[in-house]
């Protein structure tokens, strides 16, 4: 039996103004955790904005949950099932954490009758249940990030897009976070996770994509990426070296895919 993708990009070209950032990209996202690695400017955030339907592609096709996204109506329908934590996620400082998460649930059109219970569930999942009434402005960086994750996962989205979610989390919180996304993936959610922390990918992801200059250089399991490691490549562990090998090869080869 063939597993159908939650999200599929076919020949997508995308950019801002006249600047092309993603070019002719083909990508399929399946249930499980997909890690997105790449240097700054590789197009990770642009890819997230395309997957979250914020920006329509210049060309190519986006398909989410088996349906093509050709306009605002289809995009809105898809957004109900997408949880998105932007890299620089905003928040209303005067809101309590619970209100912020509930507000995000409302934005995603989570049915009102479930909103409260799902908010509690999301806050519990990130360990903020006992701080639910704290104001957002009173939170530390790590707690803000956790509130952002709660806002992204509220309502049990089918596709969860997390742009650098572990920034500001301490080691224990990062372990909890990995556990959380693994459990979401087990429940059938497709999680796409962008990070510069390769160990997060190694520990939590089923698939890893290496992105550079708007193109997928490599797609495999973390183990397979680690196996590619050139012993001379910089890095503290096989996965890091594998990543650097892929990137290095791309640079040496002038952009060819591994």
């Amino acid at each position, binding site marked *: 039996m063939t597993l159908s993708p939650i999200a599929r990009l076919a020949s997508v070209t995308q950019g801002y103004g006249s600047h092309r950032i993603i070019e002719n990209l083909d990508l399929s996202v399946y249930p499980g955790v997909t890690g997105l690695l790449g240097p700054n400017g590789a197009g990770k955030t642009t890819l997230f904005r395309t997957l979250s339907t914020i920006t329509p592609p210049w060309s190519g096709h986006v398909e989410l949950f088996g349906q093509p996204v050709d306009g605002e109506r289809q995009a809105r329908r898809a*957004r109900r099932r997408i949880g998105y934590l*932007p890299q620089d996620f905003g928040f209303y400082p005067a809101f309590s954490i619970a209100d912020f998460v509930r507000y995000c649930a409302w934005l995603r059109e989570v049915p009102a009758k479930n909103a409260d219970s799902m908010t509690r569930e999301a806050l519990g999942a990130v360990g903020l249940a006992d701080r639910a009434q704290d104001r957002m402005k009173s939170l530390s960086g790590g707690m803000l990030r956790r509130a952002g994750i709660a806002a992204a996962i509220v309502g049990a989205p089918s596709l969860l897009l997390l742009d650098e979610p572990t920034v500001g989390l301490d080691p224990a919180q990062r372990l909890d976070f990995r556990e959380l996304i693994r459990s979401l993936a087990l429940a059938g959610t497709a999680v796409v996770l962008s990070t510069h922390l390769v160990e997060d990918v190694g520990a939590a992801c089923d698939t890893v994509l290496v992105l550079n200059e708007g193109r997928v250089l490599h797609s495999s399991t973390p183990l397979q990426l680690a196996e590619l490691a050139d012993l001379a490549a910089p890095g503290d562990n096989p996965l890091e070296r594998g990543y650097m090998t892929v990137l290095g090869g791309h640079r040496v080869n002038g952009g060819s895919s591994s």
Partner: protein
Amino acid sequence: MNAYLIELRRSPLLTALPLLVVVDLVVLFGRSRYWIGVWPEASVAAQVVTIFLGPLLAAVSAWQAGRSSRSGMPETVLAAARPLWRIETARLAATLTLGLAAYVIGCLTAAGFSLSEAGPGFLWPSYLLLGMATLVIFASVGHLAGRWWPSAAFTPIVCALGCFISMLALPIKFNVLAGPPDQRLQPLPVALRLLFALALAVLAVTAPPLRRSDEVQMRRQKTAWHIRLVAVGSAVVSLTSLVATSAAGELRVDRPAAAVVPLCGRAEKGSPEVCVWPEHRKYLPELTLMAQRLDQSGSWLKSPQSFHEFGLRRTDLGDRGFDIAEGHVRTAAIAMADGVFAKSLGRCSPPPERERVWQAMDNIRLWLEYRSMGQDPSVSDKGLHMQGVEAAQNEATRASRASESEQRKWLAKERSYILQDSAWCTADDQI
């Protein structure tokens, strides 16, 4: 509903609500008190607060609307399934709810204070609707400005000042300052202002966002065509209703006397009857006493059988009714004294060079005014700014403080100046 309640709970206006209510009540009671017990005046007093509440609401609305951009929320909002207009509607509705709550508290206070004295009736809805339209207009303008220019300080300040100045300077009036019962608001201009307010509110939530410099390059999904249509439609209706408002004529017009049964009374049997608009019920006892005092001013002076308040007997030749200006019955004394003078001596027009005759006419009129008030002239003239009649004031004051017999002598002498030539005075048909 969920987001509306959250916006309501987290709005800075909720914290500021007690302050808004205090401003409301300070304006209500600090400006004047004569509105208490007069329904249209109480309605206007409750509505006048929009002069301050409107700009304040515009500022807060601008601040609230710009908060999304300032807080870095646009990306989250753009990724939302909920359409933008719903998000903006929840925010504007929360601002309006709290602004209108302060307004309604003021209205209810005005009603509560008037209830015992004013008699049948209630606050006039037209004035309250006018105030509501003003608040919605300014909150909507602030919301739209805040969405387009999300500065935390500049936009709210410009909105507040702009709204305040526009209220004073624009030819289209957003409020009225007095509500005498002989006047009423025209339904059409009020309805047009309400339409303008509604269209602006719709425009404020459906208008597409302006792209900020840091967002210029981000291409977005297009807004649904029907929302764009609503935005364009509301902009057209806003402009049309604004033009129509300025073309709709006066906001306040004469109230037809035929529409009401005047409230009439007399101090005692045989005294002149005094008729007022029903809303001026609280002044009737004092006015009937004034009429009674005038009736007793001397055997040769004739008092009209009745006195009518301004507006109750309009004729093509004008209206000689008495006026109660800003709660002062002293202004009614002027018209009443003139009525007695005209009934007794007719309408007099001596040659301009006969200054003493003109002086005598002023003297008698003022003396009658003082008589009607039943107070010492220094008391009855208090707060009344009379210019050009100082000589008459002095003479009438001196006369009214004299004994009754001396007053009679003084009056006879003054009268004799006027009666030197019978051609100077003619009977007044209107009395």
